[in-house]
């Protein structure tokens, strides 16, 4: 049995509807500035709120690279690059097999896939372009990142719906803690804002309508007048290292990863269950060696659906007395495969920037979602020692991650 090792976060890369880079992300959180915009597909009569990153990233890549890079891969490659630059370690080949990559996504290169399906049915093309298969596959972004940064140990793609990147980060954490590797890039990416994919969610009657007064207020988790979730795109990667490795190379340190809990509902393909979420929360606390009252902030999964939010609120009430809770999805929407990663990053920022993020636009709380809500605006100048992020995915996988302050190590460069 190996001696468990401390795991620290030394780099963050973010491409999201509320900012490119960690400082822009914090700026949006500080002011509760929403990145939800109007998304339209007039040819299908579709008009929805969505967390669109209004930027074309194709110019960041050469014409030789682009055929393989669906937008999902583009986002992942750029977020991973940002994280590695932030960590001051751009390539990992010197670590041999002791560097790993743990990546989460739900749909992979869905735009490339849908474009091909349209050609197949409408233009009756007998074959796809030779690169199409590789551009659509779920693990393509992980592969591109591993090739570019020469990550030569485990390169894994996790897919457990909305918990995909959380489970990826959790496994990266365990792999370092238990001594299998020393460094990991971990996170997720999603770019699935295509009409056919959004129409699948529409079929589920789970999507929020466009708010009649202000589209940016369309996602209202825990709110009595919530109308559903808002889908988004983005990618977030973290660089995780063993504490010893980070200290040896003089890396700046954001925080320590305190614990990871994962548990499944075993209940229903599309309906969450309180018991599974409670189990994940308890498992993370036990893993971190903490009690519920040690947690200073909980970033909830809360997607703003009628059914999901009360189940989660009940799970949180079961475990916690009065932990301050918010769902930042109100301003960044649901990043699916990158959801856990951005929300854990926000928990890291709570520690790093000493504040508690809020649930924007939460005017009247649904009585079924009664919690210690941090509503409308964040709380500043609050020391956050331990913060937690909870995610729950279709299929019943639940993930809880705890990040912990380490003032003796933090930000030493």
């Amino acid at each position, binding site marked *: 049995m190996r001696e468990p090792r401390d795991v620290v976060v030394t780099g963050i890369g973010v491409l999201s509807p509320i900012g490119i880079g960690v400082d822009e992300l914090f700026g949006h959180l500080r002011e509760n500035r929403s990145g939800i915009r109007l998304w339209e597909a007039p040819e299908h009569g579709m008009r929805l709120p969505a967390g669109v990153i209004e930027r074309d990233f194709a110019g960041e890549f*050469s*014409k*030789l690279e682009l*055929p393989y890079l669906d937008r999902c891969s583009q986002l992942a490659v750029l977020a991973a690059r940002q994280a590695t630059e932030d960590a001051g370690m751009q390539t990992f080949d010197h670590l041999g097999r002791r560097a790993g990559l743990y990546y989460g996504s739900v749909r992979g290169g869905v735009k490339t896939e849908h474009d091909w399906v349209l050609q197949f049915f409408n233009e009756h093309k007998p074959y796809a372009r*030779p*690169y199409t298969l*590789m551009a659509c596959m779920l693990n393509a972004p992980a592969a591109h990142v591993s090739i570019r940064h020469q990550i030569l140990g485990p390169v894994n793609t996790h897919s457990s719906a909305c918990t995909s990147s959380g489970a990826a980060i959790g496994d990266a954490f365990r792999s370092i803690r238990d001594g299998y590797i020393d460094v990991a890039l971990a996170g997720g990416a999603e770019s699935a804002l295509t009409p056919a994919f959004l129409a699948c969610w529409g079929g589920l009657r789970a999507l929020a309508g466009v708010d009649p007064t202000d589209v940016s207020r369309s996602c209202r988790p825990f709110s009595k007048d919530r109308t559903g979730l808002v889908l988004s795109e983005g990618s977030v990667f973290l660089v995780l290292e063993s504490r010893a490795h980070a200290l040896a190379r003089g890396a700046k340190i954001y925080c320590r990863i305190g614990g990871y809990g994962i548990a499944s509902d075993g209940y229903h393909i599309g309906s969450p269950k309180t018991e599974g979420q409670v189990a994940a929360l308890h498992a993370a606390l036990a893993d971190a060696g903490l009690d519920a009252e040690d947690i200073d902030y909980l970033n909830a999964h809360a997607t703003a659906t009628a059914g999901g939010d009360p189940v989660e609120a009940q799970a949180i009430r079961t475990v916690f007395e009065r932990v301050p809770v918010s769902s930042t999805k109100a301003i960044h929407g649901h990043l699916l495969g990158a959801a856990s990663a951005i929300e854990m990053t926000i928990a890291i920022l709570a520690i790093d920037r000493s504040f508690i993020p809020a649930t924007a636009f939460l005017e009247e709380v649904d009585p079924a979602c009664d919690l210690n809500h941090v509503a409308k605006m964040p709380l500043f100048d609050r020391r956050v020692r331990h913060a937690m992020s909870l995610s729950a995915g279709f299929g019943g996988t639940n993930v809880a991650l705890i990040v912990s302050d380490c003032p003796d190590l933090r930000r030493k460069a």
Partner: protein
Amino acid sequence: MMGTLDPTQVEPMVVDFLSERFELPRERLGSQTALRDLGLDSILMLDVMLDVEDRLGIKLRDLSMPPNPKVGDITALVQRNLAAGA
């Protein structure tokens, strides 16, 4: 259509095509330049062949290339297929 293309026109056409499609400077596209050195892998090469077929309205039946192919080998491939009545 291919029947109207002089085989000597194939090389400048291939160079034009690679230059436009991948934004590669023409001076790098000498006949002895290895495709690998340009960043063109076998999958992109296959795609180039499909584009050549579309552009010329022909069917390339012989897609065989030597190991580590060069720009000139694409020219030779198209000319070979032309001669075979592609």
